[in-house]
């Protein structure tokens, strides 16, 4: 069955799409998708072999730009790329990497200004340090706090070059953020190093 290719209206639409796309690509560049997400339907990768040959020859599929999180001229840019990619993968709202004093090294979509996020990270970091003092347990490195009915803040403490650092993530309460957070810490440490 080839309903699209049998329809003159759709052929015309496809041709117009191709024209618009080519114009846009030449005018400003165009960001392409990385892969369709059909959670409630089947996952459909491009089936090039099954595509009508005459349509494929009209215009090749665009080259899809890929973000390399470790690229960037400055360390801060690279860290922000890591945060951005983490948020994109995990569906998080925002993230911050800060040093032991709470000073932000990189921020992606902080819900408040940097001073306040620094102060808040510092408070949660202190709370983790107090766990060692009061509870005599020195492995505290993770705090998750519900901040309203929908969202939570997570702070993960990690050590780089004998300095305490924090990764703060803002996300929905239903999310299991741990895997993404751990993966991103590895990337952050490699960039800092």
């Amino acid at each position: 069955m080839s309903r699209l290719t049998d329809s003159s209206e759709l052929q015309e639409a496809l041709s117009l799409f191709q024209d618009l796309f080519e114009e846009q690509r030449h005018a400003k560049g165009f960001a392409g998708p990385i892969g369709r997400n059909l959670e409630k339907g089947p996952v459909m990768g491009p089936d090039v072999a099954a595509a009508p040959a005459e349509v494929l020859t009209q215009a090749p599929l665009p080259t899809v730009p890929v973000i390399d999180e470790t690229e960037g001229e400055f360390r801060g840019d690279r860290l922000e790329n890591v945060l951005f990619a983490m948020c994109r993968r995990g569906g998080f709202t925002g993230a911050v990497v800060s040093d032991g004093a709470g000073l932000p090294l990189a921020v992606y979509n902080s819900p408040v200004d940097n001073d306040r996020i620094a102060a808040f990270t510092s408070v949660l970091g202190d709370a983790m340090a107090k766990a060692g003092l009061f509870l005599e347990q020195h492995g505290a490195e993770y705090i998750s706090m519900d901040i309203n009915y929908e969202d939570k803040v997570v702070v993960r403490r990690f050590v780089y070059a004998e300095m305490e650092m924090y990764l703060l993530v803002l996300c929905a309460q239903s999310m299991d953020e741990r895997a993404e957070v751990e993966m991103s810490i590895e990337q952050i440490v490699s960039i800092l190093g």
Partner: protein
Amino acid sequence: MGRILTVASQKGGVGKTTTALNLGYTLARLGHSVLLVDADPQGGIAIASNLKKKTDAGLVNLLRGDASAEEVVATTRDGSMSVVGSGVATPADTICIEDAARDGSLRLTIEGICGGYDYVFLDAPAGVGGIVTSLLGVSDGVILMLRCRTLVLKSLPIFLKLLREVRDQHNRDLQLEGALVTMWNGGNELERQTLKELEQSVPEALFFRTVIPEDDNFEHASIKAVPVILLPGGRETARPYLELAMEMKERELLRGIGGDADEQTDGLF
């Protein structure tokens, strides 16, 4: 001024208003300042957001000069998003907007209220009439709403021709932000086949990879006149809009636009 995006389609009932409201609200939750403008004389956004609780005045009152911008821009209770209704109450009001589209005052009025926002979403009426043309003329981008239904797809050429015409004659900067598949029913073999053929035939970059599934929660949200995430149990239904918002941000970053909005936002708290 931030980005002005028109949510449009040549067909009605494809989820334009739902998308403008839920995508706008999602971007607001992400910390952006967002304005929704109901440019549809049928008043989709105004109804979907229960704007009447705040004000009856809207775009048409601005056009007539009998209300100021401050009087028609209503901000949501949590302060995250602002909405301008159409203000249409009579057939004469609809004609007023159409006349304003023809004489250019609609465009000027919309430009006048868009300052200070990171994103402005214009909820367009269905079709390719003067109002839509005028909205496209003032927009940076258009989100084209599609259902994987034959009649929707077969009527695409006329909208794409309008898009080309507006870009050629009125607004060289207008971008097709992407085509968004909505009301997706993955269990329907015909829809799957249609989407597959589309994907194979159209440049991949033109489609958002996110699709919006059909879900009764959207109807429930419309009844309660709220974004779907505010419904009990609505978070999963709203998740595709979070993905869409992230995808938009991703595209902006890759295109080098969107600028400093991320770093200078006032958030939810």
